[in-house]
């Protein structure tokens, strides 16, 4: 979230899209209720079904799963056409005024400039700003016979009046002018009058440019889980920037993370393409630390008169401090701080890629710790087949699960079972109440938690399992050598108990400490060697500091673990509880909060003052920590978006930052009921990633797959393990499929009848819930139905073991088509057949 949970109570207008917070984040959702109760705020809900969130909304709009870019693009068009924009914010805090290269072409035909159909990839050099004074783009730079990867120009041309036809704003306007209310209706199925009412409602916070009110967008994986999910989120971001809602109390782009520590997992690089703190991973072309840092450290890119903090310019400090944390004393300036010991990521190793590689026999073994890969899918049958080919599988879980019992998945014959050679190890793990450490919530708060119970029986803590396996592997490397023993042998492991490191030691290591006596040149403050660092401003690239994650630097200082603070005081009343836990970065609760003030540094809305420029103190002060260079005078025109080289928010995303293009464009889900009305010849995402094994099959309407299906969670269950909890099995005992009344009538299905849902990949069987909450739609004039499937049941659980279910996981159905930016599969919006079982 750019803002935070409690900040939502400050909003005047909340749009929930691609999310169902009342269902899946009931505790966080209270803040939407607070906004309604205390500010008469309004709630707009967009969803393929009438959900629990819709039940308490002020206006509900039913949308076809996967068509949100069309809706949000339509709202962008509406905002521009109806003067729901504040020019000062847009012109100064976004790249709206930046002039774009002459050779950049908008995708009226579905393709941006530079598409290579054979490679199914873009040459992105034209997706860039125009360097100052250079109307005609220069020829591409060649070095050592290879094209130099293009960069953003450091000085750009801009039109502060936003009238130049090549400026971002005019290109944005032209791009979304195609998203008329009629086109929105064709694509999304939302009748024109409903769309207009919703667009008017949400953009009304910026009527005639008045900045007093604020709107927030609250979303979850209803936006992410599509083959262009990252662009769906981008469209909402563009809308929020356009509406001047970012950086403001009650505004922002609020992602609801779906797991209590998934934010922590992504911060600490639980994904293949980042290092902790969102540093980019090295690639084989990075021949040394210097060229790596040069590649990944951005330069400012702005009009001459403006200023840009470009905080990622400190990347070398973050990267070197990380290397010192990982490799300790072995990392020295002379050996590039063990840079060569880091794996170089040569291709995509996403979740779906791992399973694909296992299916192809390239991945021999898998650690599945607290991760039920078979149930996650997508295309679970492929994952099951993959496991059959692996040599070994280690499952760390608290209950026996489908992954560890893949060999008896329904449909596996005894003969097949006998042929399976995979050795399965089951390690009993600790449950969440048995572990201490931090959770990082959607609001970026690091919250320390204590263990409430000891682990039962033989169950071990995660850190003990990881530590002992690591130390044993390292021991084998030391004894027997191997492919690259220097890597594992150089890792620092100086914990008091190396076999089970205490998480407070690890947390302190992540915060970072001084490795030598150092002094801050400006304040003259000194840190002694071994002291916990007070913040990332102290990090250095010369090996005198270490930090496991620069973003968390400041969370465990010499004062102690700030994540353990529990002070409820909120003097401003804006829900900025400065002394409750610790949020990154540096305890700033609302990111980009400089944008909550106008160019002169005065808050847009005096009743919600977050930060402001103090002429007397000559710095930014406020109720929140300013997310900004504290002493940058407003007249210096430094951009609020300090993590961008531009310093401003990106309406236009240059170069390869987004794989599909600088402006999000509507594409159809891979399995779509229609051709793309905007450009039928380019219906799907031109750079979508998919796989080609025999189990990666896709269906179309010609084959009879003409019902749109989506998958989701229920309040009463949590993913795939609460089917072991008798209290929750009591609440929702059996799997079901939600079917519109009209579709059920057509097929002669009554509530409670067993039904079969089939995709080109597999069949799912459950009872029918016949409901009025999903209405029939007209998609591009064709009558189209949607159905929905909660994901929680599989072939191992209380009801499953009692023979009360058909034992099929919902993700038997989903396709492995991936968003090319985030590699998220398309769990929502694929085509199915439906019939009585």
């Amino acid at each position, binding site marked *: 979230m750019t803002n935070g949970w409690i900040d939502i109570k400050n909003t005047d207008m909340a749009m929930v899209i691609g999310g169902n917070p009342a269902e899946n984040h009931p505790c966080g959702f209270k803040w939407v209720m607070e906004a309604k109760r205390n500010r008469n705020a309004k709630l707009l809900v967009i969803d393929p079904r009438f959900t629990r969130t*819709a039940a308490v909304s002020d206006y509900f709009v039913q949308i076809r799963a996967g068509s949100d870019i069309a809706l949000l693009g339509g709202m962008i068009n509406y905002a521009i056409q109806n003067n729901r924009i504040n020019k000062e914010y847009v012109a100064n805090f976004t790249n709206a005024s930046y002039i774009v290269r002459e050779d950049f072409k908008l995708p009226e035909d579905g393709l941006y400039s530079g598409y290579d159909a054979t490679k199914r990839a873009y040459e992105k050099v034209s997706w860039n700003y125009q360097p100052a004074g250079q109307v005609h783009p220069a020829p591409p730079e060649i070095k050592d016979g290879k094209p130099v990867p293009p960069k953003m120009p450091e000085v750009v041309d801009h039109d502060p009046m936003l009238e130049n036809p090549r400026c971002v704003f005019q290109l944005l306007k032209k791009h979304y002018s195609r998203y008329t209310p009629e086109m929105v209706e064709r694509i999304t199925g939302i009748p024109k009058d409903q769309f207009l009412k919703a667009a008017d409602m949400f953009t009304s916070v910026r009527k005639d440019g008045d900045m007093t009110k604020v709107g927030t967008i609250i979303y979850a994986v209803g936006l992410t889980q599509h083959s262009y999910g990252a662009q769906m989120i981008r469209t909402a971001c563009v809308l929020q920037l356009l509406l001047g809602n970012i950086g403001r109390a009650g505004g922002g782009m609020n992602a609801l993370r779906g797991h209590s520590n998934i934010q922590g997992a992504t911060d600490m690089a639980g994904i293949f393409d980042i290092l902790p703190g969102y540093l980019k991973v090295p690639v084989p072309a990075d021949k040394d630390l210097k060229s790596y840092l040069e590649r990944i450290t951005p330069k400012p890119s702005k009009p001459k008169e403006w200023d840009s903090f470009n905080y990622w310019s400190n990347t070398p400090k973050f990267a070197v401090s990380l290397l010192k944390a990982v490799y300790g004393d072995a990392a020295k300036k002379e050996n590039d701080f063990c840079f060569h010991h880091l794996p170089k990521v040569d291709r995509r190793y996403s979740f779906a890629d791992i399973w694909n590689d296992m299916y192809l026999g390239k991945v021999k073994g898998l650690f599945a710790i607290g991760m039920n890969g078979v149930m996650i899918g997508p295309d679970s049958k492929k994952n099951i087949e993959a496991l059959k080919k692996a040599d070994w599988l280690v499952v760390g879980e608290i209950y026996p699960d489908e992954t560890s019992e893949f060999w008896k998945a329904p449909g596996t014959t005894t003969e097949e079972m006998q042929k399976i050679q995979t050795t399965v190890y089951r390690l009993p793990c600790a449950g969440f109440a048995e572990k201490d450490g931090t959770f990082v919530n959607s609001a970026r708060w690091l919250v320390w938690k204590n263990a409430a119970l000891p682990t039962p029986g033989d169950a071990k803590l995660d850190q003990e399992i990881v530590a002992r396996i690591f130390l044993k592997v390292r021991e084998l490397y030391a004894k027997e050598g191997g492919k690259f023993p220097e890597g594992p042998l150089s890792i620092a492991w100086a914990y008091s108990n190396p076999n089970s490191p205490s998480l407070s030691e690890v947390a302190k290591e992540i915060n970072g400490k001084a490795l030598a006596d150092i002094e801050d040149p400006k304040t003259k403050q000194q840190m002694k060697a071994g002291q916990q660092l007070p913040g990332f401003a102290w990090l250095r690239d010369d090996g005198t500091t270490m930090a496991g994650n620069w973003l968390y630097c400041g969370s465990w200082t010499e004062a102690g673990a700030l994540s353990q603070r529990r002070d409820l005081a909120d003097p401003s009343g804006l829900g900025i509880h400065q002394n409750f836990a610790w949020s990154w970065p540096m305890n700033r609760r609302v990111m980009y909060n400089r944008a909550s003030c106008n160019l002169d540094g005065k808050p847009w809305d005096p009743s919600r003052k977050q930060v402001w420029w103090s002429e007397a103190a000559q710095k930014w002060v406020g109720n929140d920590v300013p997310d900004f260079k504290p002493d940058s005078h407003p007249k210096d025109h430094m951009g609020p978006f300090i993590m961008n080289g531009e310093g401003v928010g990106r309406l236009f995303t240059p170069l390869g930052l987004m794989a599909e293009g600088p402006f999000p464009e509507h594409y159809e889900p891979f399995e779509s009921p229609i051709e793309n009305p905007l450009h039928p010849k380019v219906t799907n995402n031109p750079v979508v990633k998919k796989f080609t094994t025999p189990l990666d099959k896709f269906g179309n309407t010609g084959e009879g797959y003409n019902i749109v299906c989506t998958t989701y969670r229920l309040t009463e269950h949590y993913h795939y393990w609460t089917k072991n909890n008798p209290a929750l099995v009591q609440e929702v*005992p059996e799997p079901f499929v939600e079917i519109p009344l009209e579709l059920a009538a057509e097929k002669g299905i009554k509530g409670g009848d067993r039904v079969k849902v089939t995709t080109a990949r597999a069949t799912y069987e459950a009872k029918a819930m016949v409901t009025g909450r999903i209405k029939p739609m007209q998609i591009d004039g064709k009558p189209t139905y949607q159905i929905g499937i909660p994901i929680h049941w599989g072939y191992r659980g209380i009801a499953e073991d009692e023979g009360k279910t058909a034992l099929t996981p919902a993700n038997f159905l989903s396709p492995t088509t991936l968003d090319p930016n985030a590699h998220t599969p398309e769990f929502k919006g694929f085509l199915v057949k439906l019939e009585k079982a």
Partner: protein
Amino acid sequence: MSQATLRITKISGHAGAVPGSNMSRDAKEKQVCKMVDTTTCIGCKACEIACQEWNDLPFASTSFNNTYQTMPDTAWNFWNLIRFQEYQRPNSDGSKTFMWLMRKDQCMHCADPGCLEACPADGAIVQYSNGIVDFQTDQCIGCGYCITGCPFNIPKLNPVTHKVHKCTLCADRVSGNLEPACIKACPTGCLHFGTKEDMLFQANRRVQQLKTHYGMAEAGVYDPPGVGGTSVIYVLHDATQPELYGGLPRDPRVPWTVKLWKHPLKWIGNIAIIGGVVGTFMHYLRYGPKIVPEDNAKGGH
């Protein structure tokens, strides 16, 4: 239940005065109340589980029933239940707005409780001065009359023990100055707890807000006068149609047959019985027995 801390003002099936009936200095003012704002209920069922957890109730065996509602009715081991109702609200222009109504159903803790009225067992049902109506299971004889007397169909029999159970408004927690478990668990602040006066004030204020800012002209507070008002009140989007909310009775009262049995019939019957017995005694005094002459002379029966 702790009788020391909670004054009992009514006892079922009790002859004579209730020990605590005029012992409380300000019994009326301290009436507690749970306010349920259905306009903010998201049907998350935290209250269902919290109630079971606090009261250590065994989990029920349930099955799919074409609804998100956990089970068709409350049970001896499931004291509060969210009732889900899909509803197409007709608008003035002929269109319909879809609504999914969710109402937390549990004992309403009536000021004039039908269960207590109907119960024949001395002390099986009590009402405290704070308005809470509680079952004293030790005294319950398992006749189920309370089930018939309740206009909300709340008390439920345990089939093995034949005792009835229902929501206690967490009398044990309340007596310790804690809010009921359901209120503590509610994540959205849909449930509120306080004095009846405060809760009515909050509820009416919310109704005003709904009318003024959210276009709900029929919003209102459900505090049925037919049972003397209740210690559980609802804010409804449409107070003119309480039946929409999972069958909430429009004008609940203690059933007239129960009242007839307990009051007029009781009087008439007692007078008749006593009158009858006294009457036979008086008849004997006046008229004596019938004696068959020869038998008497022969002296044998």
